[in-house]
């Protein structure tokens, strides 16, 4: 950089101090180092979401009589519209996948243990916000699949005891899924969720910078072993960038060869189409819902299902505080088993949800 400009800026904003801090940042090297990339991948894909989302807004219009038409216009008339729309959908899915892999590795490494509890909590909150992003964004093209997915998804919320009916009306903007629902989901998707997500993301990254990256359990204290690390700048950063380029390539290949379909416009007076399915990350919930019997004891099966999911989500968020063993430097074997069972449930039910009609 031109030295004069550099000096002008540095004199006012003390950039060299920040750079000094980032020079100190180092990435621990061990056999799990590869997992460190997935948080970065999720971050990169979030960036893709923000950019492609902003650009889609130039043509997207909201309303039961124009949303479908405007998306159709984007993918058929606007130059590269098909690509940007496909990228937005694919990137959303890849981002959730990357975040899940990131979370899984953090879980099995117990990286959330003291002092990084809040990094996990903000991360888990971001995962749920990503689901909310996915759920609200799914409706925006106002097609048949999205319409019924939204009916089912919002109706599930009605099963929540006491406040269920209120939540349903709050989400739908009335008692049915209509243009009012579309307006609410649009507002949520582009102006309510993004700032909340960005704040959480800021906190999450801030915590990582302040505390440094977590090392595997026992790694810190292992005698006779010299800790190995790689400077973040430029070594790891460059590797990150390389991975991001590969992810971008995958994203573009998927978008070009498997463009996201628009489907048929939603019609509130036609039956749900055969073979209807939600996005893959909701398939396990979907398939569970199919298998739940109508009544379990005195309760409706659906009510118990929704409550079980809520309890599961709460356990996930509060995990660092529930896992006492990790805070004493031990890995609980039971927790490993629970993790594997949960993953197996997720994987099997996702596959079943996909293949069973």
């Amino acid at each position: 950089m031109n030295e004069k400009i550099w000096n002008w800026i540095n004199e006012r904003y003390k950039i060299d101090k920040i750079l000094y801090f980032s020079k100190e940042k180092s990435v621990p090297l061990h056999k799990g180092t590869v997992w460190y990339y997935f948080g970065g991948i999720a971050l990169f894909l979030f960036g893709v979401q923000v950019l492609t989302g902003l650009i889609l807004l130039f043509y997207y219009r909201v309303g039961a009589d124009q949303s479908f038409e405007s998306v159709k216009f984007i993918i058929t008339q606007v130059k590269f519209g098909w690509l940007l729309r496909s990228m937005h959908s694919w990137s959303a899915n890849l981002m959730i996948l990357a975040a899940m892999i990131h979370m899984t590795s953090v879980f099995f490494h117990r990286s959330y243990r003291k002092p990084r509890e809040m990094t996990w909590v903000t991360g888990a909150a971001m995962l749920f916000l990503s689901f909310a992003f996915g759920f609200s964004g799914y409706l925006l093209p106002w097609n048949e699949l999205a319409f019924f997915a939204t009916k089912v998804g919002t109706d599930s919320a009605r099963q929540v005891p006491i406040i269920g009916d209120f939540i349903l009306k709050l989400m739908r903007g009335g008692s049915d899924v209509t243009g009012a629902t579309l307006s609410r989901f649009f507002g949520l998707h582009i102006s309510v969720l993004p700032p909340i997500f960005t704040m959480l993301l800021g906190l999450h990254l801030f915590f990582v910078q302040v505390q440094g990256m977590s090392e595997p359990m026992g790694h810190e204290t292992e005698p006779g072993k010299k800790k190995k690390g790689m400077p973040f700048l430029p070594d790891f950063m460059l590797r990150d960038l390389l991975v991001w380029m590969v992810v971008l390539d995958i994203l573009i290949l998927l978008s070009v060869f498997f463009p996201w379909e628009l489907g048929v416009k939603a019609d509130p007076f036609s039956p749900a189409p055969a073979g209807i399915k939600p996005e893959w990350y909701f398939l396990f919930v979907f398939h569970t819902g199919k298998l739940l019997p109508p009544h379990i004891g005195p309760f409706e099966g659906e009510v118990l299902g929704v409550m079980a999911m809520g309890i599961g989500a709460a356990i996930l968020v509060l995990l660092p505080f529930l896992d006492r063993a990790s805070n004493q430097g031990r890995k609980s074997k039971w927790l490993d088993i629970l993790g594997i069972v949960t993953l197996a449930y997720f994987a099997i039910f996702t596959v079943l949800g996909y293949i069973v009609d």
Partner: protein
Amino acid sequence: MAHSDTPDSGRRKFLDLFLSGTGLAAGISILYPIFRYLTPPKQEEAVVSSVNLGSAKDFPVNSGKIFRFGSKPGILVRSADGKFRAFHATCTHLDCIVQYDAKAGGIWCACHGGHYDINGKNLSGPPPRPLTPFAVNILPESGEILVSLEPEGGEA
């Protein structure tokens, strides 16, 4: 009033209470309108008590059709023996819209695979309750199908 370093605890308590009370009141007066704003107002809906679905003769046997009943979807089915029945088309499971299943001669929901029989009774899958029936009448003069609300507690 005491001229010492210890603050007047009575006064301090009063101020604390006063300030937190004011803060609370300000918070509620901001949040309450937002909460009410987000709750959608009840909208006047055209009251529908019956709809005319056209000629009964032209309606194919062993088939079904979704119709509008006010703002809600209904389903009219004609079984293989030619009999008409009509129900609210909203699946009792999770709000999807059901369709006629010509193969089974019943009604099913594509969302989670719920099956009902021709009388709207839930047979298998997740639906917890039968479909709500409408009354179906064939007008004697014109031969048209008239679907109307069941009187409270009426049977299909």
